[in-house]
């Protein structure tokens, strides 16, 4: 079709202007340049501009997700003054950043691709750190020189482009967008893709968006290009883990750019070639040969040229399948079916998680988007922080979110180090679509943050719960006030449970000041003797772990205040080796050499993990093994920033060991434990309890992916949800209570014998707490499919009073009514669950809509079906 006027869709007309584009490489050469793995990704969007240094700490903490061979950051919603331009230029002009790998090439590049086509309103070399060799000693490859141009396409040039391609009547801006994109493509082709020795490439293009990347860690990019004080509304960062060690330029590092878009990616496509083919049929050609580049190209194609709304872009990337598809409304099914048939070959297959920062100038929005693949194979956590300043965060690990919040809160009291909500997206689902969008919309000169899922449903917190304003009032500890009496009496039981229940009762009416006063009094009390200290720690831990009505206060701020005082109690403990009374001793990274045998048999070691590396020979988990070797049995650990493997490596004889962990504990916690008890006071990360043999693991929050993979036994209690693939391949006799639910593939290939005969089982309660601390059933006790699929042993007991679980969710298992012996089997675990979390068997679990019901009308059993083909010879052994 030569006559483009027949095409009515503006995007397709623009796409047609690319018809003469040729592939950047020979077809045979379009193979992935290198494998890369998952990587660390982090990003946040804030209603006020924040400085680049706040992406610094989370990036540092995700070093172990990269290898220093590629890092980058992107920012959207910039500050005009820092850039030396007016707000108008920032809003209207294209901001093009070009990396010159060969500085001598700049005049040539400018003469060919900048000056002839653009009106340059501002151009500058991005200032860099002069003495970078001293400041960033680990940086091996000098980052390229980067120039920044604020430009508009010259009207005559654009007019010529319009005439050339007969693009009459199209919005001027759309044509100009396409022109800029094509110009960048040509530049990259001439100075990057076509050359063996690369000379220059476009780092970022679009309005009000920048990208900088280097061969190093992401935060080193911020350091090198002086972005620490640079302010922006949206930041994303990426730590790359390319498999090859020798990388000399950052062309392959993330983020990758398309017009107005920056995308970082954690994962690896299995169908790179197919996606490249799909794109090349639509005149888009990869130039950097990484799968992240093709991802950003598909986004650009679908969003800018096809004009898909975000929902359709997400659907094209992560198709809704199986039962989730069937549960969509019919009109959506119709559209999605068409999207899938049109775009399935461009849909990335395999494990991936994208974070996208983009500017949507048409709707005057800055957006931060997180999309997970349909199978949720990469870790992902979302968080929302509401208040005077609003913040939305997306990271590959929760600890990176905590690090961002801590960094912000340290500087600005309006930020709380604890977010209001943390959650995982369920990829390709009918519930949230596996994607969340934080958009910053302009309202009355301010930016307002909205969080929505793929379908546009809002994620919010109650409006009436107000943040703590940061006021610190003097607390008179001497005064014999009502609070002082409450604390004294409350701690008299030695366990602090009385204090907890008193506070729980009164806290809805209290102000933040009263709450703080009580906490301060508890700290003062704790300093008196061991009994008071144990009681205070226990009371504060209950306040931290349990859910209750906070009244008009925010739970996140209460938690922050509780954590503050707990940390103070821990920090005020005498150091190990110190000649002081009491059973508590404290040790940290700086004093680690003082590690010695316990000073008394009932001694408790308080380990401040903050300074320890997250893994390796000197990590805190190994240090704990050494302490155990010296005779320590009781541990309180805190100050985590994602340190891994806590509890691993102690070996089999650990029945007397107990660890209480506070803070952002890391991956693989309790993996392989054999006898000990670990309590995690807060949310936990991924891969907990792998191959766990025996012992007890209690998580007062959510757990991440592949929880209890290959476990052999143990008792596990989880207050919240488990993310994807918990209990896969578990054998033996693991017994677990999950009070929330699981995303997908719960107990696939479960092989834990006969539950009534010593085997294992999982109890799923499907509950959640609302903002006032009340328990309520989740929308579905188990939302996904592949429940207990291909399992050959064990059972799942699921609280399903409304019979929502259907056979379609099973794959090889069968639903059965709860027998009396089943109830007798699970009751002790539910009672322990009640003791740990305060979830009453009678009042909460067996009560449905105010009515007490018999267990068999609340719980259902999912059991294994014996497959005839696999059991032929069974009789011959018996």
């Amino acid at each position, binding site marked *: 079709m030569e006559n483009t006027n027949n095409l009515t869709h503006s995007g397709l007309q623009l796409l047609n202007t690319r018809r003469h584009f040729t592939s950047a490489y020979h077809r045979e050469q379009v193979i992935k340049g290198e494998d890369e793995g998952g990587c660390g990704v982090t990003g946040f969007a804030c209603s006020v501009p924040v400085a680049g240094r706040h992406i610094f700490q989370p990036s540092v903490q995700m070093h172990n997700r990269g290898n220093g061979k590629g890092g980058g950051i992107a920012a959207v919603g910039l500050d005009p003054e820092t850039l030396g331009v007016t707000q108008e230029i920032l809003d209207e002009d294209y901001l093009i950043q070009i990396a010159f790998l060969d500085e001598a090439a700049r005049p040539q590049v400018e003469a060919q691709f900048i000056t002839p086509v653009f009106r340059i309103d501002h151009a500058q070399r991005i200032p860099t750190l002069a003495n970078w060799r001293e400041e960033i000693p680990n940086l091996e490859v000098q980052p390229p020189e980067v120039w920044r141009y604020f430009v508009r396409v010259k009207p005559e040039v654009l007019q010529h482009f319009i005439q050339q391609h007969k693009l009459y009547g199209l919005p001027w801006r759309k044509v100009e967008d396409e022109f800029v994109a094509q110009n960048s493509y040509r530049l990259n082709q001439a100075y990057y893709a076509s050359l063996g020795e690369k000379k220059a490439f476009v780092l970022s293009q679009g309005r009000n968006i920048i990208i900088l990347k280097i061969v190093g860690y992401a935060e080193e990019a911020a350091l090198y290009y002086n972005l620490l004080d640079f302010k922006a509304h949206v930041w994303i960062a990426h730590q790359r883990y390319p498999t090859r060690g020798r990388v000399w330029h950052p062309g392959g590092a993330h983020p990758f750019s398309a017009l107005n878009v920056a995308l970082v990616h954690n994962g690896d496509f299995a169908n790179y070639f197919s996606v490249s083919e799909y794109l090349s049929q639509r005149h888009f050609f990869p130039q950097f040969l990484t799968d992240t580049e093709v991802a950003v190209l598909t986004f650009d194609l679908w969003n800018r040229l096809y004009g898909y709304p975000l929902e359709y872009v997400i659907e094209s990337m992560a198709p809704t399948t199986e039962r989730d598809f069937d549960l969509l409304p019919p009109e959506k099914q119709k559209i999605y079916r068409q999207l899938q048939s049109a775009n399935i070959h461009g849909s990335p297959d395999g494990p991936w998680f994208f974070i996208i920062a983009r500017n949507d100038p048409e709707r005057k929005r800055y957006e931060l988007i997180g999309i997970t693949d349909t199978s949720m194979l990469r870790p992902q956590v979302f968080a929302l922080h509401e208040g005077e300043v609003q913040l939305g965060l997306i990271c590959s690990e929760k600890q990176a979110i905590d690090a961002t919040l801590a960094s912000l809160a340290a500087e600005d009291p309006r930020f709380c180090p604890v977010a209001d909500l943390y959650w995982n997206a369920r990829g390709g689902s009918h519930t949230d679509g596996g994607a969340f969008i934080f958009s910053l919309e302009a309202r009355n000169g301010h930016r307002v943050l909205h969080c929505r899922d793929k379908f546009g449903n809002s994620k919010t917190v109650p409006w009436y719960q107000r943040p703590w304003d940061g006021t610190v009032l003097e607390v008179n500890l001497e005064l014999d006030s009502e609070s002082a009496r409450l604390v004294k009496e409350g701690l008299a039981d030695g366990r602090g449970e009385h204090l907890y229940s008193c506070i729980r009762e009164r806290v809805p009416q209290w102000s933040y000041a009263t709450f703080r006063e009580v906490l301060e009094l508890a700290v003062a009390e704790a300093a008196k003797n061991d009994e008071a200290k144990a009681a205070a720690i226990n009371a504060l831990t209950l306040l931290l772990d349990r859910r209750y009505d906070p009244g008009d206060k925010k739970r996140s701020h209460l938690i922050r205040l509780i954590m503050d005082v707990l940390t103070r109690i821990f920090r005020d403990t005498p150091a190990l080796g110190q000649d002081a009374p009491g059973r508590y001793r404290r040790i940290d990274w700086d004093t680690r050499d003082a590690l010695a045998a316990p000073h008394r048999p009932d001694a408790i070691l308080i380990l401040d993990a903050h300074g320890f590396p997250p*893994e390796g*020979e000197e990590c805190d988990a190994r240090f704990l093994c050494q302490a155990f070797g010296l005779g320590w049995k009781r541990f309180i650990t805190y100050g985590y920033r994602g340190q891994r493997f806590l509890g691993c*490596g102690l070996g*089999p004889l650990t029945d007397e060991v107990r660890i209480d962990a506070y803070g952002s504990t890391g991956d693989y916690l309790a993996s392989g434990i054999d006898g000990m008890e670990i309590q995690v006071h807060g949310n936990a990360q991924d891969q907990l309890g792998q191959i766990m043999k025996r012992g007890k693991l209690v998580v007062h929050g959510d757990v991440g992916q592949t929880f209890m993979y290959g476990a052999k036994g143990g008792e596990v209690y989880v207050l919240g949800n488990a993310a994807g693939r918990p209990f896969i391949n578990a054998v033996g006799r693991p017994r677990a209570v999950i009070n929330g639910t699981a995303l997908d593939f719960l107990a696939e290939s479960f092989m834990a014998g006969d539950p009534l005969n010593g085997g294992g089982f999982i109890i799923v309660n499907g509950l959640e707490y609302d903002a006032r601390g009340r328990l309520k059933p989740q929308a579905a006790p188990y939302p996904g499919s592949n429940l207990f699929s291909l399992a050959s042993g064990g059972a799942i007991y699921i609280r399903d009073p409304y019979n929502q679980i259907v056979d379609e969710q099973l794959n090889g298992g069968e639903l059965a009514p709860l027998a009396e012996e089943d109830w007798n089997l699970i009751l002790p675990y539910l009672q322990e669950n009640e003791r740990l979390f305060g979830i009453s068997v009678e009042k909460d679990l067996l009560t449905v809509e105010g009515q007490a019901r018999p267990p068999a009308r609340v719980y259902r059993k999912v059991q294994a079906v014996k497959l005839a083909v696999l059991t032929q*010879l*069974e009789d011959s052994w018996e």
Partner: protein
Amino acid sequence: MSTAENALSIDSWSPGQAWEPVHTPSRFRNALSKHRVWRSESRCIKCGRCTEVCPQRVFTKAGSYLRRPKSYLCIGAAACQDKPYYCVAQCPAAALRVSLHPSYNALGDRRWTADLLLATWWQAEFGGLPAHDLEYRTGGSGGGFDRLRFIFPTRPPDFKLTHADISLELEMNRRRDGRPHITMGVPWYGGGMSFGSVSINTILSRVRAAQRFNSLMSTGEGGYPEHLIPYDNHVVTQVATGLFGVREETIQRVRMVEFKYAQGAKPGLGGHLLGDKVTPAVARMRESVTGMALFSPFPFHSVYSVEDHKKHLDWIKEINPRALVSVKVSTPTDVDMVAVGSYYAGAHVVQLDGSYGGTGAAPDIAKKNIAMPVEYAIPKVHQFLRAEGIREQVTLIASGGIRTAFDVAKAIALGADGVQLGTSELVALECLRCHNCESGRGCARGIATTDPELADLMTVEWGANRVSNLYHSWSWQLKEILRRLGLRSIRELVGRTDTLVHLDYFDRPVDDDIRRGA
């Protein structure tokens, strides 16, 4: 003898000693053979002449009773008929006949030809190379190692070099990261075969041979039978995708932990053990359900990227601070990237598992069609690691279809540091390559079975000696190859592709039979 007694029985060898071959004949009365020596009982006059002339001791007497001729020792009429000791000619009663054994034509397959099976059995019995014309170096697959030959200089480069000067030692930890060194006495070790896939007697036979040669043996993915505890220092425990039998305790026990990401015989599939073989003992070890087939997932559910992989390795290193870590991968086209990624993730050993291996339990469609042939993968990775500047920090192990000492030498000359064995050890235990490994009572030789009755067809003592004899013969052959090339250490052979020719591109006659010549 029961299994437990087997494990405890004392053998004559003690640590520190060099293993000397112990004659360990077949468990069966009539060993399979290439030639058949037939004696007509009606004609035989029992003069005993044959027992006197035959230098191969085919004929033996017990008092005046003439035993059945041991055909498998016969070197055949072609090699013998001109000799003064040719029994057929010497027999005064013309009672003897020597011909090709009819079962010879039915034995073996392309990869493991009848000759290779018989030669391996011979080595396992005597600890040396067969005296007659059995082809002991290559199979008949027409590709892979079977088309590669060594070119030995006509005169040895170093006349003074003797076997005593030549070292076969292989250091497994070349990272210099503070973790202990493991120096193996031979450049091979036993590959993963789980309890469940093979019997405990098979496992113990292999590990005992590994101990005698200061080598290692991998447990495979089926737990750590307690019989192995005395051999902890020679055990590599496997962490594979099903995590069967993997516990902190088992990881802490060993000097090397092997991560099995994939098997060359069946990439993209996890291990599987069909219900037949999940006997009560196996189910107990794996804590699963008796009679239910066990399918390990592919891949690790916790590892979807190289950074997950590093975390996974870090975890094992945290649990056992003295262990080395080995990463076993199959050979996809980007195997070089995988190897480099494994190195940067902290692996000490990278193992490339090519497509020639796999027992009868691996599906044919996978064995024959997926992975890259290992002789391509080895040089690809070797060169890539060299270009990356890290070749000296990685121990590169090749596996999958290493059948002979020549295969070992070829793999090393292509760029590997050492190899891992599987099937060849089973052949030493008299495996027939009948391909019934997946079924519970399918193994006629009692090797790949956990059926108590079948497993006791073999004692550990016998098995350990058979495998040790094979190891002894291989050591001799490797040293002889090195001697002929004038190399003092197996290390010097790494990457020496110049010592090899490929028959597709070389049309002059090649003879690398080390039983002949200088």
